[in-house]
């Protein structure tokens, strides 16, 4: 199966190169990097660093559209290049690429593979309980049990893409995807990954969580 790793990048000049190198050291597959209109030098730095490495394919959005849109662009490129599955990994280093072989192995068996971080006391209280609440709510409404609803380390095969095609551009993609998995009763697997919280001001904030909550009824109506 031809698999691409997709790395959406937004203002990650400090960490993106390290993350890409870490991925390359774990697996020998192509990486599609989508710079989502970064205002720092992320795009130039990545382009410069990997200009001779054909495994790293770099594209950019002229303006920032959000992680969901960058993921979708990467996915469309992967399908165009003959990809049969994609795995998404954040550029900020919060997802350890050592789990990529496990994701690849699971994708052979299941159409969708989600990463999950154990929600123990190491994770911030608000994230832990917010995630648990959202997981419970989505479980009740959409009949899908997920261990970590907000984890962006995930992969899926091309044959299920149309069933889980998300509309969210910013945060909320993972939750929307979970609702579509429930709605379409798609079998999935979950891979336990490390909990690494890099920056408390990045990722899903309490305001993003509120916006996700507001969207849930719309996803339910469109069930």
């Amino acid at each position, binding site marked *: 199966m031809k698999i691409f790793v997709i790395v959406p990048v937004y203002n990650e000049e400090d960490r993106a190169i390290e993350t890409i190198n870490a991925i390359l050291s774990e697996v020998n597959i192509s990486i599609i990097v*989508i710079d989502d*209109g970064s205002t720092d030098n992320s795009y130039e730095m990545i382009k410069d660093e990997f200009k001779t490495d054909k495994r790293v394919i770099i*594209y*950019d*959005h*002229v*303006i920032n*559209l959000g992680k969901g*849109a960058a993921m*979708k*662009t990467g996915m*469309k*490129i992967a399908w165009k290049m003959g990809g049969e599955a994609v795995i998404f990994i954040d550029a900020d280093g919060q997802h350890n690429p050592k789990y990529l072989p496990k994701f690849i192995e699971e994708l052979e068996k299941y159409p969708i593979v989600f990463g999950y971080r154990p929600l123990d006391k190491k994770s911030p209280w608000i994230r832990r309980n917010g995630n648990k609440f959202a997981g419970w709510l989505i479980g009740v409404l959409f009949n899908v049990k997920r261990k970590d609803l907000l984890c962006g380390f995930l992969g899926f095969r091309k044959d299920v893409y149309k069933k889980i095609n998300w509309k969210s*551009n910013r945060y909320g993609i993972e939750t929307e995807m979970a609702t579509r998995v429930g709605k379409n009763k798609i079998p999935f697997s979950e891979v336990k990954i490390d909990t690494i919280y890099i920056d408390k001001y990045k990722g899903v904030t309490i305001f993003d969580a509120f916006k996700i909550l507001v969207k849930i009824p719309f996803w339910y109506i469109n069930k």
Partner: protein
Amino acid sequence: MNIITLQIVLLAFAILMVYSLFLHWKKKDISNNLFFFWVFIFLVFVFIAVFPKILEPLLKELFLVRVMDLGMIGTFMILTYVTIENNIKIKNLETKIEKLVRRIALKKK
């Protein structure tokens, strides 16, 4: 705040809005039709603010006591309509921008 003070506030608001519309019209941000439409709306607004009693027959029909109540209900209805319209237009614009940006990204290679 008595009725006269409120009327002055409403008049000042209407003048400010018409002035803002005028500036946009001069800069050609809005068309003639849109400018005159909004000026007409604010003239009606000023007329009602100055002569609120003309709405009294309508108040009886709607079982309302004060013109202010009618104003509030009317305002909420208009704002809800404008919000829904804006929301739909923004969503459509977002979708179009996303497609455009993606097309540019793919064409670059």
